[in-house]
């Protein structure tokens, strides 16, 4: 008996810890000035080692790495959340429509998802950022647009299952419009699938943003964790083994992503209730 209780609290602790981490990052993103010891654009002597004044030393331009880390939270989270939300929105809409209406709409939308899956992402990003001014919203649009196909597939599968279930058929027989059925019947049931998917797309967006800045394709004025790491890579951070320059942003990215995944798993409780009847 006792073992059951302690396992449960272990799971709860990890959940509360992750929620704590996410709220911390959000606070940093909203009001970085309060926490950052120095303003974002204040420069000191480059390549200083960590000391009491600069907890994480300074980078090649002399910026204080600790303050950069705090200011960078805003961009990374913003991109992660907006791109994740955008891609979930498209994915769910496509999945619902193609799963519910089936027929040629389903084929068309699924063919579209295949195409988006296969379109090579990097040239498309270069193409778009060359035509439009590369700003944070363009990046969010691009990242969002290139990650909704998995969501669409999952939502479509669930909608297909749902559309043959009893209460949907009965709703349809009572003359509810498809829109009402979709919103009131199918979406609430699909929501437990959406939450982990939403978290996964957020992490996917954060990872691709970091990777894009590694390739030097993201806008230099946006200071994100990914860009800090790629600056360390291109400006001697690795060669001088300044681990205090590239490890903290790496830990922040992984920490944020783990916390998002952990929160997404809140629904995924291996059900024991099959037996108690």
């Amino acid at each position, binding site marked *: 008996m006792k073992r059951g209780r302690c396992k449960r609290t272990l799971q709860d602790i990890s959940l509360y810890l992750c929620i704590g981490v996410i709220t911390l990052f959000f606070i940093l993103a909203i009001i970085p000035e309060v926490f950052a010891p120095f303003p974002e654009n204040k420069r000191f002597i480059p390549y200083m080692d960590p000391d009491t004044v600069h907890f994480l030393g300074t980078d090649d331009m002399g910026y204080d790495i600790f303050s950069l880390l705090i200011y960078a939270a805003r961009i990374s989270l913003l991109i992660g959340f907006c791109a994740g939300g955008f891609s979930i929105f498209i994915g769910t809409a496509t999945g619902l429509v193609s799963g519910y209406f089936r027929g040629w709409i389903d084929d068309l939308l699924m063919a579209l998802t*295949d*195409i988006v899956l296969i*379109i090579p992402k*990097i040239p498309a990003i270069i193409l778009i950022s060359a035509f439009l001014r590369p700003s944070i919203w363009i990046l969010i649009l691009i990242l969002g647009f290139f990650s909704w196909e998995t969501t669409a597939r999952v939502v479509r599968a669930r909608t297909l299952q749902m559309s043959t279930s009893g209460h949907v058929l009965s709703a349809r027989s009572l003359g509810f419009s498809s829109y009402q059925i979709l919103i009131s019947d199918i979406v609430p049931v699909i929501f437990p699938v959406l939450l982990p998917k939403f978290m996964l797309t957020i992490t996917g967006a954060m990872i691709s943003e970091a990777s894009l800045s590694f390739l030097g394709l993201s806008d230099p004025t946006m200071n994100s964790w990914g860009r800090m790491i790629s600056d360390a890579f291109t400006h001697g951070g690795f060669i001088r083994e300044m681990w205090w320059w590239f490890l903290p942003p*790496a830990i922040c990215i992984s920490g944020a*992503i*783990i916390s998002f995944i952990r929160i997404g798993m809140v629904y995924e409780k*291996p*059900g024991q209730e*099959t037996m108690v009847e």
Partner: protein
Amino acid sequence: MGASFLSFHYLIRKIFRYLFSFVIILLVVFLLPRMMPGDPIANLVGEDVYLSPQKILELRSAFGLDSPLHEQFFVYCMKLYQLDLGYSFHMHAPVSSLLIDRAAWTLLYIGIAIVCGIIIGVGPGEKAGWESEKWWAHFLSAGAVLISSTPPYLLSLIVLVIFVYHFGWFPLKGFYDTFDITSIIHHLVLPISVLTVFYASRNFLIMRGAVLSEKCQLYPQFVRSLGIPEKDILSGHIRKNAIIPLITLIALDFGFLFSGALFIEIVFSLNGMGSLIYDAILSRDYPVLTGSFLVISVFVIMANILSDILCIVLDPRTGRNE
């Protein structure tokens, strides 16, 4: 009987859908590079060299870039018909031979990584799902979550700094120093292990999730009531149901096999397909870009069709409610 006809019909519809998307992809893959700003001619020569205007015109006609886009597309499709992917002026070689050479190496290091990823990922994932209460199951899944939440290039950078820069156990670049097995192995151990760790942790998590959800179904309980021992329940009944979601993902891995792991190639200085495509993007090498994207798209579509067939064979429920 009705069931087999239904899935056959379902498969045909799927194949039609893929053909339709292939035609669109052919168009997109042809237009995308050509719409990118920048002029491939300029990349032919160095940064400081002076190109007289009429020399540029001469080159444009040699490239076939002077005719309007639809004509170029028509010519491209005709040549494609005879499996001629065109000639790359930047790489001074026919595209097909370029792709074959680079694809061979990429197939080597990514192929091994995917296979190891399956071996290392699926087995333990299944066990971790089956005995999810054990401490090692928690430990392994926490590790897998940690790995799949770090950006790929970051993990390879950290591995590079520790094993190559700091300890110097592994060489810095290239597929080999001298073309022999020990040198190739010595060069490829690190990139392959980084990739394997990634594929394995993803397979582990998905397999664990699938076994967990299958474990709570009623049929394992019924089989247990028939006196079948626990391990036979896992291998005999749960595994076949749990493997289904993983099949589409592994099929996609094989599909994107040829796109190469760009980050691994940049960090470990390997010239596989990934860097071929990345260089072609930067130097606007249209024939190579279109050729490689086309090859990748064909492989992804074939992988999708294969995974659909496998799904129908393994799970009779697919296609039933189409």
